Structures are given as structure tokens and as C-alpha cells.
């Protein structure tokens, strides 16, 4: 019952945040200096051109009316017409969502592997040279701009060693995995850089608890203690951090797609910026925000499954 009440409140909050998100995106176009129509048409536009475009985009209607059009469109999945591609935005955007989500999930899987391996390795060798090396290497990775990291991977593994394709997407699933390996690696390593720090300190903290001492005292082998007693409890806070990092992962995915020419949302977003196709930019922003909101909801709800002691107050 308690969980049901929590889920209900959490969903109410989500509806509120979604409402706020639409206000922000709507307000971005209407309250920031700069007229989208003028920006769209460029320097040589006449007043008449601009007025026509205002009419076409509905920018000459009243604010509440425009907001209503925007939101009711969103609810129905109609996000306007792309100015550059001359086709409905939702087709353009939704067909690319699975590609970007696929890449993000791929990166998450790689990040999980790196985090478990290097996080446990660092914690087990606390203060030793392995710990230091892991710390320094992942500090460097964390501070590296993701687009440049991607380019370095291309220079090394594609152009110099010829192990992986330079860019593209492939047509079959094994090909997708093959083509997306380098971008997923770049994203995964950067995500892991944050998570490893967290898992390391949380494993070290958990090692000091009474039940771990008991497990040692009753003669369980070290590996068993680490896996069954320490890791499961230590992972709790790492999951939280992961939820907080998801926004960065989505943003990173969009940027890295432009580096590796992956035909996902990111590529569409940045061609749309260049062609000043703001309905597309708006709807990709909505989609990205919705993904973050949903993942954070899932993370919040997952606590009670990971840890039966969690109650929702």
C-alpha cells in the first residue's frame, strides 16, 4: 500500500515536471530575445517574408493559444512540420529514437562492465598502485571532451589499426554492434569514470560494516564476501548516481553520434540547428527530457526491489 502511494505521488510529480518542461520549451522560443522567423530566414528577409512565416508558424496568435496548440500537438504526437525536411517532425524524430536509445544502452552495458571490474579492483587494492593508476586514468577520461575522445578512438582504432569502421551504422544487428562499438566505448568509459569513483568508496565503506565482519568471521571465502555481501549493498548508491548521470549520457550520445555519423537523434539535432529547423530542435529537446524523467522514475522505483528495507516516506 505504501509503495502504491509512493508510486502515485511520484507519477503526479512526473506529470508536473512534464508540464514544466513544455512551459520551458515553449518559453524558450517566445521569451528569449531573437525572433525564430527572422533567424530562420536569415539577413536578407523582408518584413513581409517574416510576417508570412509568423502566420505559417502561428507566431502571430495569442500566447495562451500558441501554448495550447503546442501542447495539444505534443499530446497527440503531432510536433509540427520540419521546416527543412518538409515532413512531420514526429516521423523524423521517432524513427531515430531507437537508434539513440540503442547506443545509450550499449554504452550503459559497457559502463557497467568497466565499473564492476575497475571499481572492485580499485577498492580491493585501496591505496595501492593499481588503485592510483585506475584513479588517474579515469580522471583523464572524465576530463576529456567526449567528441575529442571519439576522434582519438577513430584515429587510433580505425585509421591507424583498421580494427573498426570509421563511421556509420551498418544494416544487421551484429553490424550495428560492430559499428557502434567505438562510440559506445567512448560513452561507456566516460560514464564509468563517474561510477567507478562512487562504487570504490561505497565498497570500501561497506567493507567496514558488521555483517561483512561476521561473514569473514564465519570463514566465507573473500570472493564470496565481496560478491554476495558487499557488492549488493554497495551498488545501491551507484544506482542513484547512475540515475543522476543519465542526462549526461543522453547528451553525450547526441554529441558522439555527430562524430561517428550515427543516424540517430543527435545527428538530426545538429543538422536541424544548422538549418535552423526549430520545431525539430524543440521536439528532440522534449524527447530527451522525457527519457531522463522516465529513467529517473525507474531508478527511484527500483530501490525497493534492490533493497527490501527501503520504505517510502
Amino acid at each position: 500500500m505504501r509503495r502504491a502511494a509512493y508510486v502515485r505521488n511520484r507519477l503526479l510529480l512526473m506529470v508536473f515536471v512534464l508540464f514544466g518542461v513544455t512551459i520551458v520549451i515553449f518559453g524558450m522560443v517566445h521569451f528569449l530575445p531573437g525572433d525564430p522567423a527572422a533567424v530562420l530566414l536569415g539577413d536578407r528577409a523582408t518584413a513581409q517574408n517574416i510576417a508570412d512565416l509568423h502566420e505559417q508558424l502561428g507566431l502571430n496568435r495569442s500566447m495562451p493559444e500558441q501554448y495550447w496548440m503546442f501542447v495539444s500537438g505534443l499530446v497527440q504526437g503531432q510536433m509540427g512540420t520540419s521546416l527543412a525536411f518538409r515532413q512531420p517532425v514526429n516521423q523524423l524524430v521517432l524513427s531515430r529514437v531507437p537508434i539513440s536509445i540503442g547506443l545509450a544502452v550499449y554504452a550503459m552495458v559497457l559502463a557497467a562492465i568497466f565499473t564492476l571490474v575497475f571499481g572492485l579492483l580499485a577498492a580491493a587494492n585501496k591505496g595501492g598502485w593499481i588503485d592510483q593508476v585506475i584513479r588517474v586514468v579515469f580522471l583523464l577520461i572524465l576530463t576529456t571532451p567526449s567528441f575529442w575522445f571519439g576522434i582519438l578512438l577513430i584515429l587510433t582504432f580505425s585509421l591507424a589499426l583498421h580494427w573498426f569502421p570509421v563511421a556509420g551504422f551498418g544494416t544487421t544487428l551484429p553490424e550495428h554492434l560492430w559499428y557502434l562499438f567505438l562510440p559506445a566505448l567512448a560513452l561507456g568509459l566516460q560514464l564509468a569514470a563517474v561510477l567507478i569513483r562512487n562504487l570504490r568508496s561505497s565498497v570500501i565503506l561497506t567493507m567496514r560494516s558488521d555483517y561483512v565482519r561476521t561473514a569473514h568471521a564465519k570463514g566465507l571465502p573473500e570472493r564470496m564476501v565481496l560478491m554476495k555481501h558487499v557488492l549488493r549493498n554497495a551498488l545501491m548508491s551507484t544506482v542513484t548516481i547512475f540515475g543522476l548521470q543519465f542526462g549526461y549520457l543522453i547528451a553525450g550520445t547526441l554529441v558522439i553520434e555527430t562524430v561517428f555519423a550515427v543516424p540517430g537523434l543527435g545527428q538530426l539535432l545538429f543538422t536541424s540547428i544548422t538549418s535552423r529547423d526549430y520545431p525539430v530542435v524543440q521536439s528532440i529537446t522534449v524527447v530527451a527530457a522525457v527519457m531522463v524523467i522516465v529513467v529517473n522514475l525507474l531508478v527511484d522505483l527500483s530501490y525497493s526491489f534492490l533493497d527490501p528495507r527501503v520504505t517510502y516516506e
Partner: protein
Amino acid sequence: MSENILPGSIARPVATPIQLTFSMRLQKSGLNLTLIIGLVMLTLVILVAIAAPLLTPYDPIAQDLGASFMPPLSPDHLLGTDNFGRDVWSRIVYSTRLDLQIGFVSVLFPFIVGGLIGIATGYMGGRLDSVFMRLVDVLMAFPFLVLVVAIMSILGPGLVNLYIAVGIVGWIPYARITRAETFAARNLEYVQAARTIGCTTPRIMLRHVMPNVIVPGTVYVFTGMVLAILTGATLSFLGLGPQPPTPEWGAMIAAGRQFLLQAWWLTALPGFAILILGVALSLIGDGLADRR
């Protein structure tokens, strides 16, 4: 030391001075190795930015088409030249000024605004607090970079717009940090004392609360600067930052991308500059956080 003991005096244990190891002395001075390395690196970067004209033999935007695509370690061009024959070293060095400025300015305003919002909401609580926290909830739902990019797509590319876009979102962490601190401080004795002697609310917030809650926010400043520099470089990589021919690391990497096959140095080298500055600031941030 025994010669100091006068004859007939009571024999007492001689206090041998504790030998301070290097790391203990560091700890005493409030510094640590992480912080020192970071500060030294940052100082070097700032010196490079100041002394840019002395360190560079060429004008960063002067073209010399006869000398294009010279590889690094060429006799006249230490780090080679780009497709227009511009000296890569000179461009990287001059860009230090711009990127430091981006890091500094895009943190300064969010820090001030966020700090003030945090103090006001934390101290006054109530409706003001709920309104701002709901706003934070909404803005946090957006991936930071995506929202910044979306704002930039409306404002148009350029440096000032970059500051505006980063500023619209960037105040949040400072507001959250100072709010939490203020929340804890607002019922402490010195605040109650100030209230009792009749200080006005703005005076209490600015003169009494602020000096005590501002430190955690300043620790975050360095992390914020790393984020700002990476964001700035990413935006200019995407063509939304300072426009060509202004030398900027992200823009240089973007421009070099077309020549990946023939000139790796155009994309690889400017990235190291971002990395050095980023690591310097991260180390300072880590070092300051360890100190607390």
C-alpha cells in the same frame, strides 16, 4: 639536548621534536598534493595565456597557404600547420585566453545568481522556496547540454549567447548547495542573535549568513569550470561557439575533422590543451573537497 639540563635539576623526559614528514607539513598548511599539482598546472596555463604573444612566433589567424599541412616538429612550426597554413601552436596558445575566459565567465554569473537564490530560498523558505525548487525540478529534467544547445539554437551562435545559454541552466548547482547550507545555518545562534538585535532580513542574509554558507559553493566552482569549459568546447565543436577565424580549441577540432586522414594533429593536439586545463581545474576541485 642533555647539556641544557642544569646539574641538580630533576631529570625529566626530553621532548624530542616530532619529525614532520612532507605530507604532514602539507596537511598542516591546509594544502594537499592534489591541490598543489592542480594549482601549479593552472598557474602555468594562466601564464601561457598572459604571455601568448611572447610564446608564439606567428599570428594565430595569419594564413600562409604555401605552408599548409606541415606536420608537427617541422623546422618552423613546432606543432605543424592547418589547411590554411596557420601555425597550430600559436592558435592553441591564443585559444587559451578565450577558453579560460569561457570557463571563468560562464561560472561567475551562475555562481553569484545561484548563490543569492540559494541563500534567499534557504533562509526564507515558504512559498518562494517551493517555487524555486519546482523550477529546479523542471530544469533538471533536461540533459544540461541539450537544453543549452536548444537555447543556443534560438539565440544564435556566438560567445555572448553561449554565456547566456550556460547561465540560464548553470545557476542550479550553486543554488542547491547554498540553499542546503543556509537551511542548516538559519537557526544557529549567530543568526538568532542578529535577528534579536533587529537586523533586517536582507542584512542578515548578506552579512551574517552568506559568509558562512558560501564556501561549499566555491569548492564546486572548479568542478563547474571544468563543466563549462567542456560545454563551451562542445558547443563550438558543433559550430555554436565563437565564430571562425577566432582560435578556440573545440572549433579547431571541428575544423580539423575534415582532414582526419591527412592531418591527425589538427584534431589530436587542441584536445590535449582542453585536457590539461580540465585536469588542472579538476585536481583543484578534488583537492579543495578533500580539505573539508
